[in-house]
C-alpha cells in the first residue's frame, strides 16, 4: 500500500454507505461468533450428560423411563430422559445452523459491496481505503475464511449429534466430546481473521 501509513487508532467516521455497511457487518460477525461459543459450551454440557448416561446405563434396566441410580451411584438417565437430552442437543445444533445461515447472508452482502466497488472504481477496487487499508475484497477474503470454517464445523456437529447417543465405545465417545469442545475445523486463524476485521473497522484498538 503506497502513501502514508494511517495511525492505527485513527477514528474513521464511516457513517454512511459502504463503510457503514462493512462496520455493521463486522459487528454482526463478532456477535454471531460470541453466540456460537455460548451454544458450543451449552452443547458440550448436554453431550457430556449423554455420554455419561450411556456409560452408566449398562448397569440399569433398559426399560426404566425416568432417572435412577446406577451401580456406581451416578445419576443415570432412562430412555425418555436420554431422548430429552438428545432433543436439547438437536436444538443447539439447529441454532448453530441458523447462525451459519446468517453468516452466509453477511457474506452475500459483502460480495455485493465488492461488486459495487468494482462498478464504481473498476476491477482494482477503491484507491482510498474506507478505513485503514482494506478494500471490499479484503473483507470478503477474511470473512470467507470464517464462513468456510463454521460451515465445516457445523457439518461435524451434525455427525456428532447423530452418533453421540449411540456410541458404546469409551474412547470414541471421548473423541466425540473432544471434537465438540475443541472445534478442530475452526482454526485459530479464524479468530485472528475476526480480530483483523474488527481492527480494520475501528471496533478494536491496539493498546498504547
Amino acid at each position, binding site marked *: 500500500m503506497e502513501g502514508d501509513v494511517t495511525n492505527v487508532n485513527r477514528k474513521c467516521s464511516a457513517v454512511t454507505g459502504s463503510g457503514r455497511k462493512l462496520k455493521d457487518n463486522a459487528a454482526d460477525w463478532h456477535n454471531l461468533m460470541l453466540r456460537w461459543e455460548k451454544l458450543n459450551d451449552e452443547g458440550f454440557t448436554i453431550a457430556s450428560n449423554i455420554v455419561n448416561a450411556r456409560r452408566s446405563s449398562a448397569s440399569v434396566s433398559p426399560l426404566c423411563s425416568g432417572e435412577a441410580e446406577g451401580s456406581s451411584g451416578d445419576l443415570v438417565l432412562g430412555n425418555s430422559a436420554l431422548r430429552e437430552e438428545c432433543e436439547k442437543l438437536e436444538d443447539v445444533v439447529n441454532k448453530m445452523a441458523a447462525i451459519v445461515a446468517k453468516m452466509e447472508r453477511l457474506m452475500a452482502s459483502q460480495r455485493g459491496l465488492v461488486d459495487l466497488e468494482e462498478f464504481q472504481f473498476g476491477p482494482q477496487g477503491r484507491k482510498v481505503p474506507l478505513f485503514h487499508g482494506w478494500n471490499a475484497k479484503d473483507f470478503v477474503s477474511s470473512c470467507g475464511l470464517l464462513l468456510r470454517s463454521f460451515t465445516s464445523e457445523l*457439518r*461435524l456437529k451434525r*455427525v456428532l449429534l447423530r452418533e453421540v447417543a449411540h456410541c458404546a465405545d469409551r*474412547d*470414541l465417545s*471421548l473423541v466425540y466430546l473432544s471434537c465438540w469442545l475443541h472445534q478442530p*475445523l475452526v482454526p485459530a486463524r479464524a479468530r485472528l481473521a475476526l480480530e483483523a476485521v474488527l481492527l480494520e473497522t475501528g471496533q478494536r484498538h491496539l493498546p498504547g
Partner: protein
Amino acid sequence: MSKSALLTIHQALRRSFHSLENNQKLWKSVLAECIPLMASLENLAEQSRALSNVQISNTPLKDFPEVEELLRFKLSQAMDTVLCKLHENMASLQSLRDSLTNQVSTVVQLYEQNTDTLDLVTVTERSATIPSVVDMLEWLQDAERHYRQQFVRRKTLLHALSSGNLNFLATATKKWKELDTPGAEDQITDTLCKVSFFVESS
C-alpha cells in the same frame, strides 16, 4: 557493643520471619492454583490417548479425514497453554524461594560477622517471649531448606510432565500431591507461632 550487635541481629531475624510468614501464605496459594491445572493436563492427556486408540477411518468421522490431525493439534495447543501457566507459577515459586534464601543468608552473614562480640551465653539465652538467637537461626535455615527442596522437586516434576508422555500425564495430580510435606509445613507454622511475641515486639 554486644547489646547493639544483638539488637541488629534481632531486627534482621524479625524481617526474616515476616518474610517467612508472607512466603508461606503465597507459596500455599500458588500451589493451590496448580491443582486445577494438573487436572486439566490429565484430562487433555486422556483425550489425546482416546484419539490415539481410535481409527478415525473406521468411524462415522471418516468423512472428515483431516479431523484427527486438527484435533491432535488443538489438544497439544491446549496442553501447551496449561504448561505455560504452570511454568509461570513455577517462576513465582522460584522468586519466593529466592527472596527467602536472600533474607536468611543476610541474617546468617550478620551473625557470622558478629561472632566476636556475641558470646555463647547471649546467643543461647532465651526468655518466655524471645527464643534464643541460635534457635531462631536454626528454624529459619530449616524453613529455607524446605522451600529450596520443594522447589527443586516440583520443578523436576513439571519438567517431566512437559515431556508430553501421556501415560505419565495421566497421574499428574497424584504425583503433584505426593510432593506435599505437611509435616514440614506444620513445623513452619509452629515456628511462626513460637516467634510471634518476638516479631511483634519492637
